[in-house]
């Protein structure tokens, strides 16, 4: 009986007075979190229900901004562009990151140098990288078109053509992000015991079998984690577009965040931009929840 009550006591959550010092230590962080994250987020949701702008008095319009979003063809184009960019960056970045990690996980000579080289773009300033890539894509004096011309092929308007601009941005993003994927995959690979690979070799598995039957499935949690962070990151792409294409040509590189920025700070339609922001937030939240649930199921 005495044992039962002591166990029950141990399991009961401790009261505020018992934990006051823990709460006291948490308070500064909670205040910063509230002011910098929760308050603006809540304010954004409230703003999305208004027509707030510098141009007129503010009125509550309730869900009018959301209704307008559904029928806004420009927004739909931005959603399409964002989805194209997300898929275009996420899948090749993960594939290249995995291949680089597998190649550099072995006893390859100079692997440390290669790992550093592949990771360097991640450490480069986005703006600096964007400026360099603008030169790389330069239609007249850029190295890509220079090489094409030397090979007798026609030069391409990489950032000036609505058909090529988004793909060009995707290529740059892959170059910049696959180092992150490689490092995360490398950490995952080093967690796979050597014995398992040796057992597979003894079981007669060839390199291809080992990769697809052992390595890839055993990295599934890493893959889901990486996919979620890449999706969340690419959903919010802005910097490279702002510097390299400004959303053009013909809105072909206009993504949700870029359009949100233009709507808010170009057209001063803060209420409408806030509605876009809320939709984006909910989409990211949804992906995060789905990803976390899949990862947890994998772990169990």
């Amino acid at each position, binding site marked *: 009986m005495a044992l039962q009550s002591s166990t029950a006591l141990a399991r009961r959550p401790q009261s505020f007075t018992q934990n006051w010092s823990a709460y006291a230590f948490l308070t500064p962080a909670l205040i910063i979190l509230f002011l910098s994250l929760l308050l603006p987020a809540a304010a954004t949701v409230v703003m999305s229900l208004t027509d707030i702008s510098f141009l007129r008095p503010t009125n509550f319009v309730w869900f009018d901004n959301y209704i307008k979003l559904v029928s806004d063809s420009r927004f739909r184009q931005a959603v399409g562009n964002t989805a194209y960019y997300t898929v275009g960056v996420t899948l090749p970045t993960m594939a290249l990151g995995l291949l680089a990690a597998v190649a550099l996980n072995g006893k390859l000579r100079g692997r440390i140098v290669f790992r550093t080289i592949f990771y360097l773009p991640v450490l480069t300033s986005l703006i600096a990288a964007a400026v360099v890539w603008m030169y790389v894509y330069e239609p007249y004096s850029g190295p890509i078109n220079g090489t094409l011309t030397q090979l007798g092929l026609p030069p391409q308007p990489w950032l000036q053509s609505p058909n090529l601009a988004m793909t060009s941005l995707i290529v740059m993003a892959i170059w910049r992000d696959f180092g992150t994927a490689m490092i995360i995959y490398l950490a995952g690979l080093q967690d796979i015991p050597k*014995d*398992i690979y*040796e*057992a597979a070799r*003894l*079981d007669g*598995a060839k390199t291809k079998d080992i990769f697809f039957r052992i390595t890839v499935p*055993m990295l599934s949690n890493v893959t889901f984690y990486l996919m979620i962070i890449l999706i969340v990151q690419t959903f919010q792409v802005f910097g490279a577009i702002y510097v390299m294409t400004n959303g053009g040509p013909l809105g072909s590189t206009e993504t949700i965040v870029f359009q949100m920025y233009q709507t808010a700070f170009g057209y001063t339609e803060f209420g409408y931009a806030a509605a876009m922001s809320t939709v984006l937030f909910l989409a990211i939240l949804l992906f995060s929840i789905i990803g976390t649930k899949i990862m947890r199921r994998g772990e169990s």
Partner: protein
Amino acid sequence: MAELQLQNVSKTYGTFEAVKDVSLAIEDGEFAVFVGPSGCGKSTLLRLIAGLDPVSAGTVAIGDKDMTARQAGERPVAMVFQSYALYPHMSVFENIAFPLQMERRSKADIREQVAKAAATVQLTTRLQDKPNKLSGGQRQRVAIARAIVRKPEIFLMDEPLSNLDAALRMEMRSELTQLHKRLGSTMVYVTHDQLEAMTMADRIVVLNAGKVEQVGKPMDLYHRPANLFVAGFIGSPPMNFLAAKVTGLEGGTVLLEVPGVGQVALPGDASGFTVGGDATIGIRPEAIATAAPTEPALSLSITPRTVERLGLHTIVYGEQGGRTLTALFNGDPVIAADAPLGVYVPLQQIHLFDAAGQARGHRD
């Protein structure tokens, strides 16, 4: 099933020689155990047989075929790892089926073979479970089933019981011995535990610092160890060693002066000794008795410092001539700690080693 032949096998890592010029023949259907302390090269030797590491010199042959240049998966061997090395994302069925899938067998054949192997290791009801749902012993059984299903000519086992608790280890020891009898396959088993080696092996290969110290049946190694290393490694508690000086050689008898004991005359091969040279005598703890035997015996007085009563046996750690002697007595005799105790060792049971540590007077 086939015999295994190792000819002058060596393995070096940089300047470190892990395996030194090992030549060995393991017969068809034999249960051979490689035993030795950590770092003696026993697991390396097993990996060389499996093809997981290439040999630096020498040849590995299975049956009458040279396997030295063949990759791991191309050799007719299966291996059970200490860590089990199960594929954690696959079910028990998929784990056992994996080697067959790699051979591109038909689904019906795979189902049949897996069912047979699972029945052999009593895992039929757990086929759909993932390895993390199984106990240590069950995981080891999956690893064994995965090896069985390949129908290898030689089973290689790298300390397969080390991760199990004592009770389960004992159970699995017996199961593996039974399995060997049932399958009749050649098995090479690596362990650092001399108890496992003694209880399971048809023949034991004792390794030390990359070299084979002695090969023989368990009782041969116990009764006739070739040198000090084997004498100290085989047997538990380990053999007592007493340093001695050779004072005379008379035909087949070696006269010794053992500090703290006195003059001892032991039958032995005198060719290994010189008068005035060093020698070592070895006394197994179980050769020490409290009652005087009828045969000629060495008489000693020890002062028990620690007495460990195990029920079936009593182990006494006693002081004798400034050193510690271990004695093992049957049952639970009355022994008082710190009081001198007269004990006897039949001369016939004393082992004699020359200055180089080689046995010169084999006992029975």
